[in-house]
């Protein structure tokens, strides 16, 4: 893609749980302003692969490069240092805390005396959530009392606020209604324009086909292949997911 370094590159990643190879020698990359859909059945290893990038899991072998430099990611804090932000399928929200507390969880703003600057955090949360979801008003309730879309907004706000360069979205629209799904799609387009690279993980091809520039398919922990979305049909991609085979003539275009 226009000759630039990839934003992130994962090379030959292996992850094993006990004796099971959850991820077996998979390599993927992502360029600025690009959306890469990561597809596969449940248990194909896509979430595991991506959790290596977000610091939740450790790979047994393999290397990660961020903007051409080797990156050491051992925990979620490390990943954040490389501006890698993750929106988990479960949203990873503490249900008993309010929106601002969740937005800043692990990265709280503090006053000079070391205490939390709650008013400041609330102000920042109001600003960013207003941008993402103008209907957001429940700033003092625990997020448990919010709707699915509002919870999603909090999780997205967390990634956007801290200026993600690499954004990982795990099944971002799985629990959302039509209107909210459209909002997430709009947001993805907007972030793309800002030059952010996005990994979009899904087990449902319909969720990602319209949004992704490239599609990477995994099956049983192994890489099936990567294709440019414009070069394939949905049926061909379904074939990759189900049969684990590259469509005729698509393979050589993958890394073009």
């Amino acid at each position, binding site marked *: 893609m226009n000759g630039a370094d990839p934003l992130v590159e994962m090379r030959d990643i292996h992850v094993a749980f006990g004796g099971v190879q959850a991820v077996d020698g998979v390599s993927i990359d992502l360029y600025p302003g690009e959306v890469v859909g990561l597809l596969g059945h449940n248990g194909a290893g896509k979430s595991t692969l991506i959790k290596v990038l977000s610091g939740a899991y450790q790979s047994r072998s393999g290397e990660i490069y961020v903007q051409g430099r080797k990156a050491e990611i051992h925990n*979620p804090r490390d990943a954040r240092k490389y501006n890698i932000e993750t929106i988990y399928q*479960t949203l990873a*929200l*503490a249900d008993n*805390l309010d929106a601002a507390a969740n937005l800043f969880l692990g990265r709280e703003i503090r006053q000079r005396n070391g*205490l*939390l600057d*709650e*008013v400041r955090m609330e*102000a920042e949360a109001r600003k960013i959530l207003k941008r993402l979801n103008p209907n957001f008003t429940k700033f003092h309730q625990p997020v448990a009392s919010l709707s699915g879309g509002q919870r999603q907004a909090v999780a997205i706000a967390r990634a956007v606020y801290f200026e993600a360069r690499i954004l990982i979205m795990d099944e971002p629209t799985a629990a959302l209604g039509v209107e909210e799904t459209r909002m997430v799609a709009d947001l993805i387009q907007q972030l793309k324009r800002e030059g952010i690279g996005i990994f979009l993980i899904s087990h449902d091809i319909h969720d990602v086909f319209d949004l992704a520039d490239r599609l990477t398919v995994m099956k049983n922990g192994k890489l099936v292949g990567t294709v440019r979305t414009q070069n394939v049909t949905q049926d061909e991609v379904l074939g990759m997911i189900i049969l684990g085979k590259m469509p005729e003539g698509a393979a050589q275009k993958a890394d073009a």
Partner: protein
Amino acid sequence: MTVVGRTLKAMEVDTRILGMVGALLVIWIAFHIWTGGLFITPRNLFNLSVQTASVAVMACGMVLIIVARHIDLSVGSLLGFLAMFMGVVQTEWLPHLFGGGDGPAFGHAWIWVVTLAAGVAMGALIGALQGYIIGFLAVPAFIVTLGGLLVWRGAAWWITTGQTISPLDANFRWLGGGAEGSLYFWPSWIVGILTCVAICFSIWWARRERRRFDFPQKPLWAEYAIAATLSALVIAFVATMTSYQVPSRAAERVYALRGWEVPEDGAHLVFGIAIPVLILGIIAVFMTILARRTRFGRYVFAMGGNPDAAQLAGINTKRMTLWIFVIMGVLCAISAAIASARLASADNAVGTLDELRVIAAAVIGGTSLSGGRGTIFGAILGALVMQSLQSGMAMVGVDAPMQNIVIGIVLVLAVYVDQLYRRRTED
């Protein structure tokens, strides 16, 4: 909505806390009538405040532990062990250490401080050990502290092979309250007035902060009403405590001890705020700030709300667990000092069953056993409710077994009512 409902909503009062205060008042009034006017008296309320202090101090730590989805069954035994440990430190080690070649220096002015520091250090160490096993070795807190319950009670016996340590150091005994361990008149009022100033200041400060960002604010009258109500409560408390007269013989003892000149009409003295209650107040403020206004507290609540989310947010939950138990250990040491000082002696049965009182206080005070929810203030109120029931029943002559039955029922009932309330308000 009724006028009262609207008023409370504008004031943003926690109606659950209000409900507990109401329950407490009902208990007090009922016993007051039942005892023929003996319950709501300066004398009884003073004793009640002192009796509540030890359990309430530990309940402050238990809130953090339960909020983080753990439990600590060892606090009663740990209290017993630490009381015995501090007993030996103050009656055997330090007098000899400070005395040097001239024989033991009993009553040395530094003994109580060094003893307390040693107890706190030992409590922190034991808490760290238990917290390490729970956090880093991933043994469930229930099991680790169940083991601790047996281990520390056994260790408490071992320190003196079962002998009671008595009497404790004279200065150390002030920590337990009594005629020597009180603030008397003026210091009590100074503490009370400073508290009122702090309340008003914090309300003013919070309002200023919200104005800085143009946030919606409570109406001004609501702020005044809250400040006035809280200040009135503090003043009523101090007024009650300072109207309890120290018996003349004890007053003479205090005058002699402090080297005060006895006026012609004899030694007159009022108790005022008891030192253990002052300690509880300081700990309550400290723990509330820790829980609500620091990163540490925020992480404790995040761990309780969603442990996975906490971990994914980069919170080191293992280290957090260790520190939570260190805090519990420190508070156990302070409670041990209060409890043994009040008895003026330490024996290896001190604090027996306190783990259940402490957990019950936290739970009655609204701490959720499934984690993520609880307040320090609620736990202290919970401790006060339980102690009020127990003292009241003792005053009207209910037998000890019957007291346990009543308190057991109240515990279950309180949690049931709390859940009903939550179900109604949360959807």
